[in-house]
């Protein structure tokens, strides 16, 4: 078998070198902290040569819970990380110059191993700092540990911690992806998938569905006198009739009247498949509730802005009361939705 790699792979490898080179000098990972009394946000960035961002402020806060002070000197990783990344960058360059499949495969394997080892090491440090707390700390919440998430979100007391790759991290991952593409090209594995397009599409879909389910499905606040109805474009001003549609993907559509929402649904059936519908409670306009939790009435005297004249009530007794008070009729969501 030919040990030479294609022009495309060589290009990808050289690109990898460049991306890895850059990632040595920019933040690789960031942990951002979100708390009510920090509207400006706080963040910790991890670069190849040390931690940055609001380290001093975070250390100040951490001392209340007895967490160790974050200091570059305590992490041996920072003295060698740049060299390790440089090593892989050079490795990729050599693979391109020597045009060798063997070097490419070795590179890719070692790179993935390094990635895994790095994440495990990161997790270990997070565990250590989160659990090894000073017993003399001022705030001790029984059973509480402060291990930040490895990747994603976690609530720690009044702080929401959000751990995600920074630009350097994305560059690192991207160069891994580029190497993967080169490997796939050279090994021709994908030709096996040519026969089964459905399988490849399905796996893609599966991945993206799983990941997009991370999107939260609660209702978004409707800002009175600011938001416009997605259907009739008028300003939403009457809290009692405001309603909202949240699509599967998390896209939010707001309306000033249920009639507008129903009309929008009819014209956009593709967008609103499996969407969640929230309508405000007529007597407690502070709350948007799911349609399943509401009883509806309809009647001329209800007086909604666009003439739909529907009102929703979370309390059945309120619905009955207004039914007679406004000479309206109780109606189900299914009927409204037709």
């Amino acid at each position, binding site marked *: 078998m030919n040990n030479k790699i294609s022009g495309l792979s060589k290009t990808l490898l050289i690109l990898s070198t460049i991306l890895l080179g850059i990632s040595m000098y920019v933040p690789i990972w960031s942990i951002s902290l979100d*708390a*009510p*009394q920090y*509207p*400006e946000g706080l963040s910790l960035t991890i670069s190849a040569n040390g931690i940055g961002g609001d380290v001093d402020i975070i250390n100040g806060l951490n001392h209340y819970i007895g967490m160790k002070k974050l200091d570059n000197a305590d992490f041996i990783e920072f003295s060698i990380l740049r060299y390790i990344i440089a090593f892989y960058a050079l490795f990729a360059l050599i693979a391109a110059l020597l045009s060798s499949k063997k070097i490419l495969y070795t590179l890719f394997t070692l790179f993935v191993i390094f990635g895994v080892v790095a994440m495990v090491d990161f997790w270990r440090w997070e565990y250590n700092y989160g659990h090894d707390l000073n017993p*003399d*700390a*001022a*705030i*001790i*919440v*029984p059973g509480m540990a402060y291990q930040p998430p490895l*990747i*994603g*979100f976690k609530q720690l*007391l*009044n702080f*929401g911690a*959000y751990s*995600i790759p920074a630009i350097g991290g*994305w560059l690192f991952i991207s160069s891994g*992806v580029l190497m*993967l*593409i080169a490997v*796939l*090209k050279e090994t021709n594995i*994908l*030709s096996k*998938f*040519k026969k089964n397009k459905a399988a*490849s*599409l399905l*796996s*893609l879909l599966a*991945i*993206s569905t799983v*990941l*997009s389910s*991370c*999107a*939260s499905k*609660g*209702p*978004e*606040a*409707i*800002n*009175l006198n600011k938001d416009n109805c997605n259907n009739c474009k008028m300003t939403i001003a009457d*809290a009692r009739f*405001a309603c909202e549609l949240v699509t599967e993907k*998390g896209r939010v559509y707001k309306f000033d009247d249920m009639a507008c929402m129903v009309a929008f649904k009819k014209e956009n059936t593709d967008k609103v498949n499996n969407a969640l519908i929230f309508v*405000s409670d007529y007597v*407690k*306009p*502070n*709350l*948007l509730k799911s349609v399943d939790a509401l009883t509806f009435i309809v009647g001329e005297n209800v007086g909604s802005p666009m003439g739909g004249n529907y009102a929703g009530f979370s309390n059945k007794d309120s619905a009955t009361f207004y039914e007679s008070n406004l000479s309206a009729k109780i109606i189900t969501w299914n009927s409204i939705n037709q």
Partner: protein
Amino acid sequence: MKNNILKVAIGGLIAVSALQSCKPKNAGNAVSNDAASKVYVAPGKYDEIYTFVSGGFSGQMSVYGIPSGRLLRVIPVFSVDPEKGYGYSEETKPMLNTSHGMVPWDDLHHVQLSKTDGEADGRWVFANANNTPRVARIDLKTFRTAEIIELPNSAGNHSSPFITQNTEYVVAGTRFSVPPDDANGDVPINTYKQNFKGTLSFISVAKEDGKMDISFQIQCPGVNFDLSRAGKGKSHGWFFFSCYNTEQANTLLEVNASQRDKDFIMAVNWKKAEEYLKAGKGRKQSVKYAHNSYSDVTHTATSEIRTEVTVLDSKELKDICYMIPCPKSPHGCDVDPTGEYIVGSGKLAALIPVFSFDKIQAAIASKAYDGEYDGIPVIKYESALYGEVKKPGLGPLHTEFDANGNAYTSFFVSSEVVKWNIKDLKVLDRVPTYYSVGHLCVIGGDTKTPYGKYLIAYNKITKDRYLPTGPELSQSAQLFDISGDKMKLILDFPTIGEPHYAQGILADIVRKNQVKIFKIEENKNPYVTKGEGESKVVRQGNKVHVYMTCVRSHFSPDNIEGVKMGDEVYFHVTNLEQDWDVPHGFAIKGAPTGELLIMPGETQTLKWTPDKVGMMPFYCTDFCSALHQEMQGYIRISPAGSNVPLMFSVGKNQPKETATTK
């Protein structure tokens, strides 16, 4: 081939972008309410509520109208106010006298409206001075500080003032334990546990005129007393103090006072203490403390140094004080409207304990004790506990109540207010505050029948709430409508100083008693001038007394000569107006003091030592009339020993006619 690579790439991109959505969205408040109509007070209309707000490190008390959040007035209490002449005029200087001399500033933390039968009665507001321990009484007819009493044996007067349901006593407690005034204070600091004591002061308030007197003090273990509340209804006759630093640490309290899992709420049976006092069980101690009062008749403050106080020892007199364990470094200690439930808020706790007065009484009767703390019996936690509110938030500080059996607690660390039901200890609602709320105020929240309706959260961190004003920002406050099931944010406004606490009262109760002017016939100031005809300048040795009147738009006299270097000049200015809202001001060039601001019918004195020979103008500083700019005068200062005759007049001192003009 390329197609598949593309698919992989796109799949990767989708994965990456989907990860971005992993950050949870806040549920947040849904539809924002029409808050504007709830807080708008139309021009010419009045607010519903007066709130009396502590100024914290400004030393003053501010008055805000609710629901508009408008600042109505800043009342000078413990800090000098050159705008009003408070602490600058001869008549008001004695108000700030202490056993240390004149102290021009203090730290005013808490306010208490006077009560009758458990309801706010609108007669007085009491305030504490945290730094040089004092309690002040403000008269709500004139919105002026009427009386200030200093507290001996005390330091850090934080747990103060708190009053009993009929204003029998205003009670204070010490935040900093120190050796008592008559013990040797010159001891090493680390002998805290042996030598340092906490002191509670019970100040009696006379029913008719509010005059304060330290009825007795109780000497307690060296803990830090934080906040306090009187019992009411069934628990009337008892007082509850939150204590922290039961570790009795004297250094790095941040760590050393946070060690013990539970500190205490100290329950004090003051009715029993009164009995001991009557039976002569108190020790008379020789001390020095100031007592100052301002009279609206003489418009003068007098200061006296008192030299004795009676102290009851909590170690000796066994059935006055009881300790109830409370997690963890408690701050607030609040009694619900029925007087049955006592809510402890532990700054570092993750739950809220609620104690029952009945259970406490039963525990005392059956001696359900868990040992003693420095000679004081410690009641078993479970024997006193009604229940705990679980996982309410982080860092509870202070609780007030509405009339429907609900409690509202402020949480500093999680920056929110949480509403919970007292009977079933269930959390009903929570709202964020911006940011880090300290105390909150529910209108009538500490009375027998709270008015409710409004809750104001006084926050410690402002950051981005308002237009920025450099590195130093005003403290922020938020007004919530609590009339419904859920709390609704309706207004956000900045405040002066650092409000620690506030109390509110229906405006109508206070409004009807307002003094508009002082009647000139009733003015008994020793230097009053009751008419222009009586105005004069009198020399007594090197003291020159100017008996001056002011009326729209001139002073009498307004030309004064014959004053010399080395003289002490006293301008006794009487405002002859008898009309509503016509004050006059008085200031003289180069005088190292504040202005005088004199109300109709009032007399105030500015003392001035001329510093150079020449001509000094004086003028009215408060815009009083169309010809306010014409309201001025001159005083001529001659060298020491000169024989310029004493002359004073208004309107008569015309220029001499020269020969050429004839």
